[in-house]
């Protein structure tokens, strides 16, 4: 049997998988971005609980970060995928629906990646908040800013500025974690590579192509992050 070469296989010709793989790369990006945003929201609340919360909230946030950093992300994805389906089915029963209701893989995957990465986000935001000079916050109080205004105008921008490099690292983690979402059947980059290698019997070419696309995404996003870091630290003096 005559096997097509790597370039031909991943090209955009009649038998090329190029367009399919690029589309799958977009799905990977979508999963990663959704997961990252979910994680960021959780991270903000958990960091707030750790910094300002009472003893109970602080305990909960501590338990959350300890547990999520100690167990594999794959397990979290299974929990959301299978657990989410059984919760939905039970809810369905209450509303008179019989039978099994599956949770969409994309939703379960994005939520699971978000919850797993939220632990990293929490520590990043907490560290960055600690780096905000107290004088800035006191000054904001002194001129009579309300709490929300203080958060929006002073705390959020200053925290984000210090957090950008660490957030870049979390993003790289999330991007790689998104590959695990393939177990839920979402046709993202890795799943597409599996499908392709199944139908052409050329697994090496497909996984190589997937690896290259992951590298491209992480390199471009790393470049964007360093641009953002430079842009938002214009006002800061380099020691």
């Amino acid at each position, binding site marked *: 049997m005559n096997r097509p070469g790597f370039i031909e296989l991943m090209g955009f010709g009649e038998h090329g998988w190029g367009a399919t793989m690029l589309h799958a790369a977009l799905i990977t990006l979508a999963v990663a971005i959704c997961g990252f945003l979910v994680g960021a929201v959780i991270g903000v609340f958990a960091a707030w609980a750790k910094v300002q919360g009472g003893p109970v909230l602080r305990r909960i946030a501590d338990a959350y970060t300890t547990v999520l950093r100690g*167990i594999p992300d794959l*397990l979290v994805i*299974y929990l959301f995928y299978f657990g989410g389906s059984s919760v939905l089915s039970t809810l369905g029963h209450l509303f008179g629906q019989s039978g099994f209701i599956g949770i969409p893989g994309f939703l379960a995957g994005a939520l699971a990646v978000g919850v797993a990465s939220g632990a990293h986000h929490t520590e990043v935001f907490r560290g960055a908040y600690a780096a905000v000079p107290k004088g800035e916050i006191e000054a904001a109080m002194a001129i009579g800013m309300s709490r929300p205004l203080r958060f929006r105008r002073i705390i959020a921008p200053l925290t984000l500025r210090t957090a950008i490099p660490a957030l870049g690292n979390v993003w790289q983690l999330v991007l790689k974690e998104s590959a*695990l979402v*393939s177990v839920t059947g979402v046709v993202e980059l890795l799943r597409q590579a599996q499908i392709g290698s199944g139908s052409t019997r050329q697994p090496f070419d497909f996984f190589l192509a997937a*690896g290259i696309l992951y*590298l491209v995404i992480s390199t471009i996003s790393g470049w964007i992050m360093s641009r953002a870091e430079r842009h938002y630290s214009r006002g800061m003096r380099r020691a």
Partner: protein
Amino acid sequence: MDFAFLYETLLTILPGVPLTLKLAVGSALLGLVLALILALMRLSGVKPLEWVARLYVFVLRGTPLLVQIFLIYYGLGQFPAVRHSLLWPFLREPVWCAVLALTLNTAAYGSEIIRGGLLSIPGGQIEAARACGMSRFLLFRRIVLPLAIRQALPAYGNEFISMVKATSLASIITLMEITGLAAKLISETYRAIEVFIVAGAIYLAINFVLTRIILFAEYRLTPHLRERPGGVPSIDDRLDPAAAAAEGLPGGKVH
């Protein structure tokens, strides 16, 4: 909460613990050796070696571990040359593929940690050792390596913990370690939450023990940071208000 089921689940999943530990320990040790080699290549000052190490770290850290596992487990078999080679009996087995992928992956992260440790050694220490007439190898063994290990240990400890977590991916290539057994049980019983609690608790327990071991190693490696038995309280104790109060000393950190 159905405790009988939780207990059943525990009994089903526990047999997976040895495999998880074997994968983690095996690839962590092999990865450590490879990481040291890579870090030395990076710092060798020989351009080609430096570039190879740099490219290795870039590729292995920029792609998901699962892609690397698939590339080794499914991908290599595509080539007849590999299938007819002496290595095939190993590369055919999912266990060896998982160990290989985990080793290659952790070596990339580990080499950066070790590189940081090596770079942190004060130049004066190396100059002093040279002045004593130590050979390159003796200098490396007695001065550079111990100092670098001490410096790198906390970060490398985190890498060990992420190795334990990473072994869960071996379940995707059919290995029945903790996550593999858990996933099988979930698909049989559809009781994801209970199974998750049990499997998660096992992982937490392993990582808890691992953290303690690393802390103990750190304690052993930093005798100079410990208080002298029965000696004068160090300056740090005096800065610590609780210790100062206990000793009846004035002072304490101003917050």
